[in-house]
């Protein structure tokens, strides 16, 4: 399988505060890759760096072409959808308008109705609430909405930032199951950032462990699960 995303020696900083110190990782087309790490390790910043939302140095290639230094709006047009930290809901718009915005850059508006149906199939709750102001949805529903909005792009690569954050375990499991289905059926590659290492490793094919802005460990999920240090610090058994 070819590498869809290649990141080499990526640095990022918020003003004078340097967050990423030259991390490198890759993602195979069609795979699910997880970035693990504690709070403040630089996981969210890595995703933001890929989308041109922070100043970076280093190389990012998406299906072979450099995308570092490009504007966020142009990176989205290449087929990279980002479910951001905090879900990024348009709180004053309706659920349906939120979804419609997800398809904003798509040229083929004809398939739009099918996509609405497909997404309402995954998340029937969003259909019930499609005319409701999105800010009044529950946390879980807003996370579903964020994932759905990203899927409306028909992305090649989905960047998921802490989809489990602040949600009940049952809902997290539901969302993770749907992610697995989307990856397998629609061949969407997924880069997942998670603090919940156990769940992320169950879902992902490969994983990278990030500590204070550096990749300290990488391997298949099975290998990472076997690692003594990871087991003690991140899996807790």
């Amino acid at each position, binding site marked *: 399988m070819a590498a869809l995303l290649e990141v080499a020696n990526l640095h990022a900083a918020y003003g004078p505060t340097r967050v990423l110190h030259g991390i490198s990782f890759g993602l195979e087309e069609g795979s699910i890759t997880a970035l693990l790490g504690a709070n403040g390790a630089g996981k969210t910043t890595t995703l933001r760096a890929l989308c041109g939302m922070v100043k970076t140095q280093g190389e990012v290639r998406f299906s072979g072409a450099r995308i570092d230094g490009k504007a966020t709006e142009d990176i*989205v047009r290449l087929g990279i959808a980002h479910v951001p930290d905090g879900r990024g809901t348009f709180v*004053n718009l309706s659920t349906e308008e939120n979804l419609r915005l997800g398809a904003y850059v798509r040229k083929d508006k004809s398939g739009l109705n099918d996509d609405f149906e497909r997404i309402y199939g995954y998340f029937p709750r969003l259909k019930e609430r499609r005319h409701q102001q999105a800010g009044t949805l529950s946390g879980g529903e807003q996370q579903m909405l964020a994932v759905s909005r990203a899927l409306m*792009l028909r992305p090649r690569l989905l960047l998921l930032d802490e989809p489990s954050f602040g949600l009940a375990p049952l809902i997290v499991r539901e969302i993770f199951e749907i992610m697995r289905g989307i990856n397998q059926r629609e061949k969407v590659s997924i880069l997942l950032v998670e603090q919940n290492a156990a769940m992320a490793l169950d879902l992902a094919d490969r994983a990278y462990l990030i500590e204070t802005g550096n990749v300290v460990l990488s391997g298949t999920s099975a290998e990472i699960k076997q690692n003594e240090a990871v087991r003690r610090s991140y899996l807790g058994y």
Partner: protein
Amino acid sequence: METFLHQVIAGLATGGIYASVALALVMIYQATHLVNFAQGEIAMFATYIAWTLIQTGMPYWAAFFLTVLIAFVMGVLIERIIVRPVEQAPVLSVVVVFIGLLVIFNSMAGWIYTYTIKTFPSPFPKEPPFGSRLVSSHELGAICVTLAVLALLYAFFRFTPLGLAMRAAAQNPESSRLVGIRVGWMLALGWGLASAIGAIAGMMVAPVVFLDPNMMAGILLYAFAAALVGGIDSPGGAVLGGFIVGVLENVLGAYVIGNELKLSVALVLIIGVLVVRPSGLFGKVHVTRV
């Protein structure tokens, strides 16, 4: 009774103008949380452009639509060239830029066209409609034009993808970029639309107040009052506020305080709203889960 009704209808006609300018203010406020003090002067300058076009012999409606287009482009250019560099600057800097724009447009108009008051033609017939004594043709026409503009804008923001993108960009720029919306251009478009609306308001009010570089000063004050009465973040509220302020101003001016003190109605309204109900009558209360 008849004169009272006439005052009310005349108030609705000028209220429509205030509503348009208030709407232009609200549009930029929603996107930037700043009040564009130069809104009135841009409208005034556009009205002078219309006057020039009509002087060259262009038919009224051709000049009207060309002016709207020119105002739109002017608004976009102002945003791109002048406002954009101070986007990240502190609020006060931006306000100073807006006031600078106000002074520049005002002096430019005075320099090019002199401060002599000019008449501006009305596209509507001289004789009142249907022989009515309640309303002049221009008042009725201005109300219709205002309502048409408001309906078009509503349809644009409510039903078109671009309108939705503009609303999204105003509310949540970061998420908008993540779905591929070019937020900077949406802001520029907003400025263009606001300037175009202002131009229409200017052309509708100029036959009544006559054309001079200071003609929008009072109107901008009424528009501020209208936007605040309606709720500065509510487009619908601003429109209703405009009509309310227009009628109040006219009726109070005719019967209570006299024409000379009319403008203080706007100031009293502004202070009153800010003291009693800062979110305005129709300022939406957004429910957000945290």
